[in-house]
């Protein structure tokens, strides 16, 4: 039986922005201090609502970047044709208020009791909920082995680069850079495919649990490749961003 997330009504609340930290040229992490936070699980998301001076409102959902027990944080990538993300990444400052409600979602989540070994596949800003899972694993002292494969256009676009390089003790992090590589790059190159996954992913016999987050084409390719490698579909959890042009 899946753990249920039926709670009371999710109400909007004005959270204070505690800090805005630049991650890459187009990505920031926003730490939030909501007055009432029921706690979240690694992998969940929250809703953000912006109100313009003329009363117009826009809502979006963002994956929670922090681990359960840590201050609530979201990591947002600026989309050039977006309406909400340019504001969040360019205009928002510590001390501002931001309306939110959450947490939301209960399937794309991981608890130490869910076991592993864990296979985390991130495409671009799809790293955000997987970062929450890795932090949760570390904070809970879990010894579940984990592998992260992070696909990014360039090295400069890798989010949480320093933090990810510090993971030890049962966490293996590898990258594939799809567009450009720094001089002397020894990691993987090119888009994720079944050849790369056959090399990087846990063998299906070890009964791994996979979480894939990224753009649709990334998730479709990666999920199909894992099923092709023998992963049971019910051990492959996915979260996709649409390429909707609306964020």
């Amino acid at each position, binding site marked *: 039986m899946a753990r249920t997330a039926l709670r009371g*009504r999710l109400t909007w609340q004005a959270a204070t922005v505690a800090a805005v930290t630049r991650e890459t040229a187009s990505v920031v992490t926003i730490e939030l201090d909501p007055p009432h936070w029921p706690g979240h699980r690694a992998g969940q998301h929250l809703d953000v609502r912006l109100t313009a001076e003329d009363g117009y409102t826009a809502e979006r959902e963002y994956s929670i970047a922090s681990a359960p027990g840590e201050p609530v944080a979201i990591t947002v990538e600026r989309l050039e044709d977006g309406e909400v993300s340019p*504001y969040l990444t360019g205009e928002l400052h510590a001390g501002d208020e*931001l309306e939110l409600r959450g947490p939301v979602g209960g*399937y794309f989540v991981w608890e130490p009791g869910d076991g592993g070994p864990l296979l985390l596949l991130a495409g671009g800003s799809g790293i955000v909920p997987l970062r929450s899972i890795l932090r949760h694993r570390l904070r809970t002292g879990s010894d579940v082995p984990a592998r992260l494969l992070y696909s990014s256009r360039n090295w400069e676009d890798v989010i949480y680069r320093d933090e990810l390089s510090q993971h030890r003790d049962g966490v293996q992090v590898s990258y594939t850079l799809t567009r450009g590589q720094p001089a002397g790059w020894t990691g993987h190159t090119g888009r994720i495919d079944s050849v790369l996954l056959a090399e990087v992913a846990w063998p299906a016999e070890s009964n791994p649990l996979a979480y894939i987050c990224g753009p649709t084409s990334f998730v*479709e390719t990666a999920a199909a490749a894992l099923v092709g490698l023998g992963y049971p579909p019910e051990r492959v959890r*996915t979260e996709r961003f*649409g390429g909707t042009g609306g964020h």
Partner: protein
Amino acid sequence: MSPVSRGFRHLHRASDEDAGRLPPGQYVTEGFPVLSAGPTPHTPLEEWTFAITQGGQTRKSWTWQEFRALPAVTITADIHCVTRWSKLGTQWRGVPVDTLLDLAGYEAPYVMAFCDGGYTTNLPIADVTGGQAWVAFGYDGGPLQAEHGGPARLLVPHLYFWKSAKWVRGLDLREADEPGFWEKYGYHMYGDPWREQRYAGD
């Protein structure tokens, strides 16, 4: 009172016509985003069936060939995803759920749609009858692609799109309104976009 975000402006102004068709909190997308909880299933058409079931019994079942021999209609509808995108004027081909239920015979207040991959979603019978719901196999003049729910998905455009279950394989007639996949995770039991019923309690 919501705090005003200084410097935040309304950029994506939908046309007036679109604005009247846009439920609260939604924005118009021209793309067709994909949202699924797991890998895309690929059931061969020779193995595909659609069934109306009740109490563990199959009342009526169709093979792909039998299903495609049923009279189909073209549907034009606006669709609204709980993640806030709406797509206006989408065009589908499908068999009315009325047709399927009438052939199977039914008497139940609710249905649970069931799908390849284990996905389920609950709906009142009143929302899948009366010309409001279809089992769609075509999209935009072609076959429905697997990532969008092909070979066939439920189409219930007056509710949030998670109710339009992808890879649908049948409807189970139910006496009670029990939560399906997303409903168990806190999403609304009914999901009316015009009343913004996203989550339980909305």
